[in-house]
C-alpha cells in the first residue's frame, strides 16, 4: 500500500502491531457463583500479567512506578470485586465502570498535577483490560531484531516508552512528513512510511513486511520475487549510504568555492553524538520539549542544566542553538494543564507561555546560561510575532544574567539571542526584527502552516500543506535577503532544509546554513558538492518566476535528475 515516504531507507522485517483499542461494555451478566469466582480470578490474573509487563520495561521512571502502584491498587481491586460479586458484572464491564468512576473524580480536581493523573489511571485501566481480553500490549517491549512497528500514529509519549534500538522500520496509518513518527525515524535513521491509511489494518503481528521509506511503500507478506528485489535494493541503499557517509568529514563546499554549514536538529545528547557521525557541524535546533515531557512536574534548574551541559560537551565546541520551551499546540504536558482551545496552533503556546509564566522561562534561561561555559550554546525564541516579544524576552534575559553575575556564577555573557521565523508577520517584518536579534532561523513547518492556513495534522487538508507554494517561497527569500542586508546570520531548521529537491533553490536564495535530521545531511551535502552557487542562483531566479508549486516541484525534480 502507498503512504508518504517519511524517512528514506528500506526495512525488511516482522510486523509488530501497536493498537489503541476502544473498550466496550459487553452487558453480559454473570449467572452462577462459579461465574463470579472465575471472573474474579480472571481479573487477578490480568493484574498480575499487566504488572509483569510494566516490570519488564525496567527502569525507575516515575510514570512506571505509578503504573505498578495503580495496577496493584487495593481500592480499584475492592471496587472491581464488589461489582463482580454484588452486581454480577463480568470482569471487563466491572473494570470499565470502576475506571470510569475514578476518572470522573480526577477530571473534577482543580489542581493541574492531580487532574493530569487521570491519564495514568486511564492507562492502568486500559492495560488491565488488554490483559483481561488477551490482546496485545500497546507499548510492547521490542524483543526481536528487525521489528517493523505498525501503528495508528506515534505520539510523543509513545516515542519515550518505545525501545527503538531493534526497530528497523515504522509504518503509520495517520501522520505526515512532519509528524512525530517521521521525526523520530529520521533522527535514528530508520525507514518510515506515514499516512498509509486504514489499509494497515490488514497487517498482523509477525507478518513479514517491507517498508520502503524512499518510495513511500508498505508491502505485506511479499512474494519471494519481490522480497529478493528488496534485498537487492536494501543492499544498494546501504552502499549508497556508505558512499554518503564517506562524505562525513568533507566540508560542504560548492564547485565555485562557497562553503555551507550543515547542522542537525536534535532532542538530546545521544542525538548530538549520533549527528556527528553523519557529519553535522553542530545543532541548528535543539528541541527542549523532551526535557519537559514524560514527567510529573516541571524540570528544575539543575536537571535542565545537566541536560544542556551534556549536549554542549558532546558538541565539542560546535554551535548548539537551544530553542526555548515550545509546548502548546499539538505538544501538551500532562502536569501543565493547558486549557482546551478552539485553535491550539493559534493559542497559548511557546514564547507566549514563557512571557506569561516568567518563572518557567527564568529557570530555563538560568540553566542554559550556566551550561553556556561548556560550549557554544545560543538561545532561540520560538513563535515570535512582533518586536515587543523580543524586547521583553531580552529584558528577562538581562535580569537573569544580572542575577547570575551578582551571585558570581560563570556564564557566557555574550550568548547569542535569535528568533525562529515561523509566523508570517515575523517573516514580512524581518527588516524590523533583524535590528533586535543576533540571528534568524526559518522554521518552515509552522511558517508554511500559518501562511497557507493549513493544519498539517488534518487529514482532509494536509495535501494543501505545500512549502513550494510561491507565497511561502517569497517569504523565505525575503527573510534571507533581509538577514543579509542587516548583517545577521540566517539559518533554516524546518523540514524544507533537509529536502534535497529544495537544496539548490535555497542555496540560490542565499541561505548558507541548513539544519535538518542528521540522516539527511549526507544527501544535502552531496548536492552542494556537485553544484555551483551560480547554477543555484539561476534555478532560484527561474523558480521565483513560476506561478504554481506544481510547476516548481516538476522543474526542481527534473533539475535534480541532471
Amino acid at each position, binding site marked *: 500500500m502507498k503512504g508518504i515516504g517519511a524517512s528514506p531507507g528500506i526495512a525488511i522485517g516482522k510486523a509488530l502491531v501497536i493498537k489503541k483499542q476502544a473498550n466496550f461494555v459487553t452487558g453480559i451478566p454473570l449467572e452462577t457463583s462459579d461465574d463470579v469466582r472465575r471472573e474474579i480470578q480472571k481479573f487477578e490474573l490480568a493484574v498480575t500479567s499487566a504488572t509483569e509487563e510494566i516490570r519488564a520495561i525496567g527502569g525507575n521512571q*516515575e510514570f512506571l*512506578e*505509578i503504573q505498578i*502502584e*495503580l495496577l496493584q*491498587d*487495593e*481500592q*480499584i481491586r475492592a471496587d472491581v470485586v464488589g461489582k463482580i460479586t454484588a452486581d454480577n458484572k463480568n470482569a471487563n464491564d466491572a473494570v470499565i465502570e470502576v475506571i470510569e468512576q*475514578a476518572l470522573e*473524580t*480526577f477530571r473534577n*480536581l*482543580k*489542581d493541574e*498535577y*492531580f*487532574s493530569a*493523573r487521570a491519564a*495514568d*489511571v486511564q492507562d492502568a485501566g486500559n492495560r488491565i483490560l488488554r490483559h483481561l481480553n488477551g490482546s496485545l500490549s500497546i507499548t510492547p517491549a521490542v524483543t526481536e531484531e528487525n521489528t517493523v512497528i505498525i501503528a495508528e500514529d506515534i505520539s510523543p509519549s509513545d516515542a519515550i516508552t518505545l525501545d527503538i534500538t531493534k526497530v528497523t522500520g515504522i509504518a503509520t496509518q495517520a501522520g505526515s512528513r512532519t509528524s512525530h513518527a517521521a521525526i523520530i525515524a529520521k533522527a535514528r535513521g530508520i525507514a518510515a512510511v506515514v499516512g498509509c491509511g486504514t489499509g494497515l489494518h490488514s497487517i498482523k503481528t509477525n507478518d513479514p513486511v517491507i517498508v520502503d521509506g524512499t518510495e513511500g511503500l508498505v508491502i505485506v507478506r511479499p512474494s519471494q520475487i519481490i522480497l529478493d528485489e528488496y534485498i537487492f535494493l536494501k543492499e544498494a541503499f546501504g552502499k549508497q549510504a556508505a558512499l554518503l557517509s564517506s562524505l562525513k568529514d568533507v566540508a560542504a563546499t560548492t564547485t565555485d568555492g562557497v562553503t555551507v554549514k550543515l547542522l542537525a536538529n536534535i532532542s538530546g545528547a545521544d542525538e548530538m553524538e549520533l549527528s556527528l557521525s553523519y557529519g553535522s557541524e553542530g545543532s541548528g535546533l535543539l528541541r527542549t520539549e523532551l526535557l519537559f515531557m514524560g514527567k*510529573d*512536574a516541571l524540570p528544575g534548574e539543575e536537571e535542565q542544566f545537566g541536560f544542556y551541559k551534556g549536549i554542549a560537551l558532546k558538541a565539542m565546541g560546535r554551535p548548539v542553538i537551544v530553542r526555548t520551551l515550545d509546548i502548546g499546540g499539538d505538544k501538551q504536558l500532562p502536569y501543565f494543564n493547558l486549557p482546551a482551545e478552539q485553535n491550539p496552533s493559534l493559542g497559548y503556546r511557546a514564547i507566549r507561555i514563557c512571557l506569561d509564566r516568567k518563572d518557567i522561562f527564568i529557570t530555563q534561561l538560568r540553566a542554559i546560561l550556566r551550561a553556556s561555559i561548556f560550549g557554544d550554546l545560543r538561545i532561540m525564541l520560538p513563535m515570535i510575532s512582533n518586536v515587543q516579544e523580543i524586547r521583553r524576552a531580552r529584558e528577562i534575559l538581562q535580569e537573569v544574567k544580572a542575577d547570575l553575575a551578582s551571585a558570581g556564577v560563570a556564564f557566557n555573557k555574550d550568548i547569542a539571542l535569535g528568533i525562529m521565523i515561523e509566523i508570517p508577520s515575523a517573516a514580512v517584518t524581518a527588516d524590523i526584527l533583524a535590528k533586535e536579534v543576533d540571528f534568524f532561523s526559518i522554521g518552515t513547518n509552522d511558517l508554511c502552516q500559518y501562511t497557507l492556513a493549513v493544519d498539517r495534522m488534518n487529514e482532509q487538508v494536509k495535501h494543501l500543506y505545500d512549502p513550494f507554494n510561491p507565497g511561502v517561497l517569497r517569504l523565505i527569500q525575503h527573510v534571507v535577503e533581509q538577514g543579509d542586508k542587516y548583517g545577521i546570520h540566517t539559518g533554516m531548521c524546518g523540514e524544507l532544509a533537509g529536502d534535497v529537491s529544495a537544496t539548490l533553490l535555497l542555496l540560490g536564495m542565499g541561505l548558507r546554513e541548513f539544519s535538518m535530521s542528521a540522516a539527511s545531511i549526507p544527501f544535502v551535502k552531496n548536492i552542494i558538492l556537485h553544484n555551483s552557487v551560480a547554477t543555484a542562483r539561476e534555478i532560484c531566479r527561474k523558480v521565483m518566476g513560476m506561478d504554481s508549486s506544481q510547476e516548481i516541484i516538476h522543474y526542481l525534480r527534473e533539475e535534480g535528475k541532471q
Partner: protein
Amino acid sequence: MIAKDYLITAAEGLHARPATNLIRVVKRYKSATVLKKGDRTVKLNSMLNILSMALKGGDTITILVEGEDEAEASAAIEAFFKEELKHL
C-alpha cells in the same frame, strides 16, 4: 483508634512518589488506616485514593488508625509526615 492531624509541608503537595512511600508505610501494619480531609474519607492503602484527594502544600488532613498494632502504625505514619516527606 488513634486520630492525628497533619499539615502537608511539601510545597508541591503529596505527589505520586511520596504517595507510594506512604502506602508502603501503611501496608507494613495490620491496622486499618483512613485519611480524612474536609467531608471526604478514604482508605489509605490505595494510590488512587491518595491522588484523588489532591493534597497540596498547606492542607491539613486527619489520619485515623485502628487495629492491633495501631500505636506502631500511627508512630510510623507520624515519622513519615514529620521527617521522610521532607526528603522526598
